[in-house]
């Protein structure tokens, strides 16, 4: 029991279950899943389907945050990927050609890889603070997306592309399958190989990891590239779902939702440890929250208020200082200053 109470995935699960319960109270059939025309339908499937891009972006963000970084540019990358793919497809003679569509998707993803690598190089090789390095692409990337679409909304009419975000495969929405593949692959690569451990060690102390022989620079560049790739795939799903690319609004605020999902999932913003399961749960909590707000009839405008509340509560719950002050009335000297000492040590060693 104690073990269970201290498990770090406990709180995201509790919140998710509470949200689902709330929905069931308002709508008894909320959990039911039906099969129509060989496709699965239901609120739970919808949550997964609309949450797919967020889960993808959050998975990439988790690894970046695990290295002690942050990537603010994912929203822009989402827009760029959609814009690039739609531009290439709209240039095709036959928009239904599978080869052409795959080519377009390939070009878009390669572009994302390049952008992500650029972020990584700025952070790892030039040594710019992650928040600033990715801020550049966040600002310029929106402009780039609008440049690609020429400020218009590009609409495409391509059945193969539509499948990516709006279609079904094996009774499931295709987006969910894409997400499942990415999540499983990431989990295998990071948890079955030493990769995850190495990433965590870079986040714990980049300089110390370098000294024990870990290529922390290469790893950092790799996670930023991976994050941009995830954002790119998410961008493809979003733009395919609506069969159009909007350089201005695609992926707007998704970086904040993704960071929120990661934080709710119990990954520390200081880096050094991460939980992919937690992140997926966190993203589902956010998507369920949005769905709940719509379904129980609270004005959707208040979504942001709820999110603000959730961020604050989750961060407070994770803050050692807050726990020390609120839960331990007895003044125990050592625990309180410990975190700040740790940070300082990290900074001084890294310089």
């Amino acid at each position, binding site marked *: 029991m104690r073990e269970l109470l201290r498990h770090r995935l406990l709180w995201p699960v509790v919140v998710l279950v509470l949200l689902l319960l709330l929905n069931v109270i308002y709508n008894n059939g909320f959990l039911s899943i039906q099969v129509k025309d060989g496709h699965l339908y239901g609120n739970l499937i919808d949550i997964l389907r609309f949450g797919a891009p967020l889960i993808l972006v959050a998975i990439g963000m988790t690894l970046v945050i695990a290295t002690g970084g942050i990537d603010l540019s994912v929203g822009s990358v989402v827009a760029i990927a959609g814009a690039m793919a739609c531009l290439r497809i709209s240039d095709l003679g036959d928009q239904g050609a599978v080869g052409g569509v795959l080519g377009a998707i390939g070009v878009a993803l390669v572009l994302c890889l390049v952008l992500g690598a650029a972020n990584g190089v700025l952070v790892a090789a030039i040594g710019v603070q992650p928040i600033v390095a990715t801020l550049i692409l966040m*600002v310029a990337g929106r402009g780039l997306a609008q440049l690609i679409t020429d400020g218009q909304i590009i609409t495409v009419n391509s059945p193969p592309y539509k499948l990516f975000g709006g279609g079904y495969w094996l009774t499931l929405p295709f987006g969910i399958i894409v997400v499942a593949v990415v999540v499983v692959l990431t989990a295998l690569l990071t948890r079955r190989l030493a990769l995850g451990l190495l990433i965590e060690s870079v986040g714990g102390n980049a300089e110390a990891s370098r000294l024990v022989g870990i290529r922390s620079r290469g790893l950092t560049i790799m996670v930023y590239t991976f994050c941009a790739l995830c954002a790119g795939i998410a961008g493809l799903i979003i733009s395919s779902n609506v069969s159009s690319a909007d350089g201005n609004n695609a992926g707007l605020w998704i970086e904040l939702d993704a960071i929120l999902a990661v934080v709710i999932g119990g990954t520390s913003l200081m*880096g050094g440890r991460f939980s992919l399961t937690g992140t997926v749960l966190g993203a589902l909590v956010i998507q369920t929250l949005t769905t709940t707000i719509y379904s129980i009839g609270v004005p959707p405008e*208040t979504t942001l208020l709820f999110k603000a509340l959730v961020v604050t509560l989750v961060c407070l719950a994770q803050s050692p200082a807050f726990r020390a002050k609120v839960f331990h009335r007895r003044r125990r000297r050592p625990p309180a200053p410990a975190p700040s000492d740790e940070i300082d040590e990290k900074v001084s060693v890294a310089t």
Partner: protein
Amino acid sequence: MTTAGLRRGLLRGRRPLPRRYVPVLVTTGLLIAMFAAGGVRYENFATGQIVLNVFVDNAYLLVVAIGMTFVILTGGIDLSVGSVIALSTMVSATLISDGWAPLPVIGLVLLMGALLGLGMGAIIQYFEIQPFIVTLAGMFLARGLCYVINTESVKITDPLIVALGETHVPLGPELWVSPSVIIALVVLLAAIYVLQYTRFGRGVYAVGGSEQSALLMGLPVARTKMAVYTISGFCSALGGVLFAFYTLSGWSLHALGTELDAIAAVVIGGTLLTGGYGYLFGTVLGVLVLGLIQTILNFEGTLSAWWTKIVIGLLLFAFILLQRLIGARGGQAPPTPS
């Protein structure tokens, strides 16, 4: 003193000023070059009114960037400014259209901004949560409150506000500024005085230089950190009021992304994002550079609005590289986002 120390001292003594002033000087050069290029390329560009118009259009951004400078000097960041602007325009417009007198409303809005900033500062300081995530929550909160108040745009028709928004204060033959510019300049002068000549101002630099050292020196670190977020909140609210003068409306989507403009202005103005180094004068130059980019793109006509973002991104990139190359403390990049 050891030989190494002596040599370092001598080196520092030989060229103490250039290093600190290089970013500001580069920005000044850039500004002059941009203005000259504009003057050569377009007719009617190199006039006084063009410069004044940059001030008129960006008075609100200047005020917000001043608040942001305080926060960044301590090594923090405030992402909530854009939302607080929107909230301020929304609250002002709604209360005024409900029949409140404009002056108490403005007072109330400024108080609200300051309190919001104080609240965020207190959470950052006492619960040791990163400024980035706390102000992110503040950003959601303020934008969310806007939507709760009203999802539509609210017009302001109060004669005093309209007068403040539309008055042309003459400065000479065919030269004018708006009252907002004068307010912004007053705020700027007050901020420069506070930052350079008061104990609190020096404390801001000390906290940004090294929080641990400042604490050991007995400086009021907690009070300083909470105060800078309060100042930033106040400045954002005032920026919102000026924005309301400028647009004569309150809308929940006002000033979307202004936090990025403000941060960009501060960085282009030469303030180190790690804190401890920077000048408000640089921030003014940064705001002018952003404004002038907009003006030049307007003059160009064929170039579209998104080029603004790309150019700002490139400039940010260039100036951050510059900071890395010449910054006294630019050699340090904390592994954690701050």
